[in-house]
């Protein structure tokens, strides 16, 4: 008897209900007729024979009902009946129903929202053909430490070796992620751009929606004056003009012809986690142009400006491709310059490289939100349980009238189904709103976060969650209730003795709920402490009242003199703007993204190629503009320029480490040229607020020249004013150069702390929901128990009990539960906190002050939740209470 045959039979019975009814009727009539005919054959009169046949057969209606039950034909009609009854019951208890539905909506909504984040960031596959065969290829040099893996794109010549010889890949490409001046109608704007080799679009397996993609033929010097643009740029700059193909644009002051428009949503490589660099900026690529390396560049084994991606041939595994490339790297290792010898290869799956860093945080959120769901379900379960006690008489009556235990459980589960259905619908709505808000603020630099939406998988998840809560909060409490003992209930309701207050199950649920909430609270407490620590960290510069823009020059500025002249003029004119105290230029700003590490030779020490120093190229007023203290010596001046004595300024840690107990001024350091130390400045957290500043040095920007620089101004005027002033000023100097994004120092700090703020906010929101739910639960449990004991309290008050002692007793009952839960949660959180250690900053996962503070806070609010029901108990009027039964 397979499940399938039962289902088929049930389906036939349900689907063809009327035919089954008439068949049944005919069959039984035929039976009685056959019996009657038999009896007539034995000489009994036909009239009498029919009567006897009917009598022997028994009650037809009951037999037919039993047949229907046997084929489960009753299932649907009685389910409908149950649902209707469930709705009626809930409508009669709007208080209970609304609290339960809101609780479930909070739980299901929060869970669904977080799941949809996880879904879009981690689960939903990338919009490329066979994304699982897409990989990144890196060529790291292990002995050079301190450089992130993402910085190790392959050396040009090595890459072209792979492309011509490798048998593991059907396509390979390199690309860059940068930012460029693009002039469409004479006005330059800044766009995110990418230079790509000929097979880039083939590797990703994506075709343009208009025109054609960049082909290997375009990827040659001389025939590379083409560009592919994004859907967004097509709309914003060309008004979605269908005749855009063939139009000329100035790309870094060089004319290029538009040959294709990519479909909406395609924006690689910008927005991928690995490429959040200063040069990249922006979250979506707007323009793709051919990389078009010259034969000389292609032969370089010490240059590798691009990142590499590849598309594996069918059946080739990642380790096999890795082994092949590793062998090829080893065979040319002798050709690398000595510093880069010992290079290896590393191949990583594409999707992990795009979202890998957010994985842990997202999974932590998911775990936290499942705790919230558990709290919400157990809260509803205890509400249902409390009501169950109130309905004991109803159930015993129904049991006495012949309802089976299964029938009672089914009735209760349908009621929960109604609750969970309403909660689930509201929850999906809440999730939708939450996602809107999260995406709108897009606080956390999580790649693909803005693609978050509710899709079939999310809806399925919400449905599953709702059904799970039905099980947790419906079936679970229904079990003991259905076992009610009729005698017991009838006896109890007649008596007026002290009743059991809340069942052990109910109390257990409460303790568990408090414990789970404590775990959430402790986690969010630790994150809040981390966040406060980060806010209090000594940054080394004064971000308030600074505004910066970045400016990028094009190929026309091909000598240091031209670059220096341009930037000097911009700085001079900016510092003369009204309200500007100081203006300066730097290649990278503190927390503005971008890193430059150098190994240098310090006077009196042997050259050490393992120690890296942070290098910054800055103009004279930089330290004044950024508020970095000059501890010794001087800043750069206008006299430090091309052709004068090369100078260098070092950071305090640098001076202490290399020149302890003596002045660093006048010491010699060899980096780009032999330089003399002219000043010592304070340490600055440049790259990240969360790591202690390494040793740093500064060289004059206006001595060497730069292709790009950030202009920073210390000013009292609004960022918008300054931006428009600067835009006019730069356009006046050169209309083909655009200013990039305008950012205030506070925005840079906010962006550097955004991810942590987002994590802290989310976890704290979960903890707050959990706290709210468990307080509601505690309040409801005590209110219920006071209500149940009204008679008892009345008797005691009539016998002279003081209100204070009754108050104490009820509060003691509640706080015992809360304390037990807190103790349990304390222990659980102590162990669970280790899993979020990597999300913490300068706080141990088992930080005693945080745990104690959270415990104290929880105790205080739990006491408040107990106080109100307790005070109600003291207001019981003995006369009224004795009359209630």
């Amino acid at each position: 008897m397979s499940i399938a045959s039962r289902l088929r039979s049930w389906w036939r019975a349900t689907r063809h209900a009327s035919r089954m009814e008439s068949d049944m009727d005919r069959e039984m009539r035929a039976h009685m007729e056959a019996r009657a005919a038999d009896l007539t054959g034995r000489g009994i009169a036909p009239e009498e024979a029919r009567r006897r046949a009917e009598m022997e057969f028994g009650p037809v209606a009951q037999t037919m009902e039993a047949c229907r039950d046997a084929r489960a034909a009753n299932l649907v009609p009685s389910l409908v009946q149950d649902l209707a009854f469930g709705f009626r019951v809930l409508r009669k208890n709007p208080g209970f129903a609304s609290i339960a539905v809101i609780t479930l909506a909070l739980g299901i909504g929060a869970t669904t929202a977080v799941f949809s984040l996880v879904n879009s960031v981690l689960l939903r596959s990338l919009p490329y053909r066979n994304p699982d065969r897409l990989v990144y290829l890196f060529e790291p040099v292990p002995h050079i430490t301190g450089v992130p893996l993402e910085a190790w794109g392959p050396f040009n010549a090595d890459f072209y070796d792979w492309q011509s010889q490798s048998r593991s890949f059907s396509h390979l490409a390199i690309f860059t992620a940068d930012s460029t001046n693009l002039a469409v109608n004479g006005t330059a704007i800044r766009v995110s751009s990418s230079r790509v080799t000929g097979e880039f679009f083939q590797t990703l397996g994506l075709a343009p929606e208009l025109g054609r993609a960049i082909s290997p033929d375009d990827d040659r010097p001389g025939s590379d004056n083409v560009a592919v643009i994004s859907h967004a740029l097509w709309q914003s700059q060309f008004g979605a003009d269908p005749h855009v193909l063939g139009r000329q644009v100035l790309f870094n002051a060089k004319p290029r012809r538009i040959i294709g428009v990519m479909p909406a949503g395609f924006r690689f490589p910008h927005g991928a986690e690995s490429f959040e660099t200063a040069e990249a900026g922006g979250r979506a690529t707007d323009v793709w142009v051919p990389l078009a390396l010259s034969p000389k560049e292609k032969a370089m084994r010490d240059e590798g400006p691009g990142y590499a991606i590849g598309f594996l041939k069918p059946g080739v595994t990642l380790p096999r491709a890795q082994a092949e490339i590793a062998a090829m790297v080893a065979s040319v290792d002798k050709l690398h310059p000595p510093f880069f010898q010992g290079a290896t290869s590393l191949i990583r799956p594409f999707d992990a490289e795009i979202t890998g860093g957010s994985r842990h945080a997202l999974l932590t959120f998911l775990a936290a939100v499942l705790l919230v769901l558990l709290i919400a379900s157990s809260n509803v379960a205890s509400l249902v349980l409390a009501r169950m006690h109130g309905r004991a008489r109803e159930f015993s009556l129904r049991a006495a009238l012949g309802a089976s235990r299964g029938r009672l459980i089914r009735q209760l589960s349908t009621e929960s189904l109604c609750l969970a259905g309403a909660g689930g619908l509201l929850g999906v709505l809440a999730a939708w709103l939450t996602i809107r808000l999260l995406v709108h603020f897009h606080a956390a630099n999580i790649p693909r976060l803005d693609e978050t939406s509710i899709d079939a998988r999310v809806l399925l998840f919400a449905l599953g969650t709702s059904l799970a809560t039905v099980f947790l909060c419906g079936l679970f409490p229904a079990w003991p209730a259905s076992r009610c003992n009729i005698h017991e209930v009838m006896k109890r309701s007649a008596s007026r003795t002290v009743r059991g207050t809340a069942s052990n199950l109910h109390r257990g649920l409460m303790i568990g709920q408090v414990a789970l909430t404590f775990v959430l609270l402790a986690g969010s407490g630790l994150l809040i402490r981390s966040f406060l620590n980060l806010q209090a960290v000594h940054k080394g510069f004064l971000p308030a009242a600074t505004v910066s823009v970045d400016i990028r020059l094009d190929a026309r500025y091909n000598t240091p003199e031209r670059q220096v002249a341009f930037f000097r003029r911009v700085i001079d004119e900016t510092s003369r703007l009204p309200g500007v105290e100081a203006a300066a230029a730097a290649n990278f700003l503190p927390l503005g993204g971008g890193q430059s590490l150098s190994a240098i030779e310090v006077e009196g020490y042997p050259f050490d190629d393992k120690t890296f120093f942070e290098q910054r190229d800055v103009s004279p007023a930089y330290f004044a503009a950024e508020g970095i203290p000059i501890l010794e010596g001087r800043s750069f001046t206008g006299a430090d320029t091309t052709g004068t004595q090369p100078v260098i300024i070092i950071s305090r840690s640098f001076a202490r480490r290399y020149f302890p107990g003596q002045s660093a001024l006048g010491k010699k350091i060899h980096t780009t040229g032999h330089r003399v130390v002219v000043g010592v400045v304070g340490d600055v957290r440049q790259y990240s607020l969360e790591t202690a500043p390494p040793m740093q040095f500064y060289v004059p920007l206006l001595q060497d020249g730069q292709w790009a620089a950030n202009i920073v101004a210390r000013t009292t005027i609004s960022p918008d004013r300054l931006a428009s002033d600067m835009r006019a000023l730069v356009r006046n100097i050169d209309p083909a150069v655009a200013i990039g994004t305008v950012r205030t120092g506070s925005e840079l700090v906010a962006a550097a702390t955004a991810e942590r703020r987002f994590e802290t906010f989310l976890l704290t929101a979960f903890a707050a929901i959990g706290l709210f739910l468990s307080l509601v639960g505690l309040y409801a449990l005590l209110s219920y128990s006071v209500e149940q004991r009204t008679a008892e309290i009345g008797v005691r008050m009539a016998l002279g009990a003081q209100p204070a002692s009754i108050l104490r007793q009820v509060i003691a009952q509640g706080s015992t539960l809360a304390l037990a839960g807190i103790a349990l949660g304390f222990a659980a959180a102590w162990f669970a906190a280790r899993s979020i250690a990597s999300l913490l900053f300068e706080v141990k996962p088992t930080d005693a002050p945080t745990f104690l503070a959270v415990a104290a806070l929880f105790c205080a609010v739990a006491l408040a939740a107990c106080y109100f029901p307790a005070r109600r108990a003291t207001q019981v009027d003995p006369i009224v209470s004795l009359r209630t039964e």
Partner: protein
Amino acid sequence: MPERLDLLQGTLDLLILKALSLGPLHGYGVLLRIGQISSQRLEIQQGSLYPALYRLEHQGLIASEWGESDNKRKAKYYRLTPSGRRQLRSEAEKWSEMAGLMASILSTTTEEI
């Protein structure tokens, strides 16, 4: 007239399977067949036959179709399915094992202990 026996719980299903293993029958025919093979010592409440038939059909142990009876009347005929045949075999084995065990327990005398 021989003494009539009350039906043990659960034996009706087995009896129906046995009766149908000898050939397809309609409902009333099942009753007659059981009476015949038990030499009229078992009598089944006529109405209680149908829920059992429907249950067995729901479990896929028997199947039914409408046909014509000996006296040219329309009747619903039941027959054993392959899985019903397997079920009958295993139930019959269990039954005789149990019956043998019960018989040997009940015939035990004081000397044998």
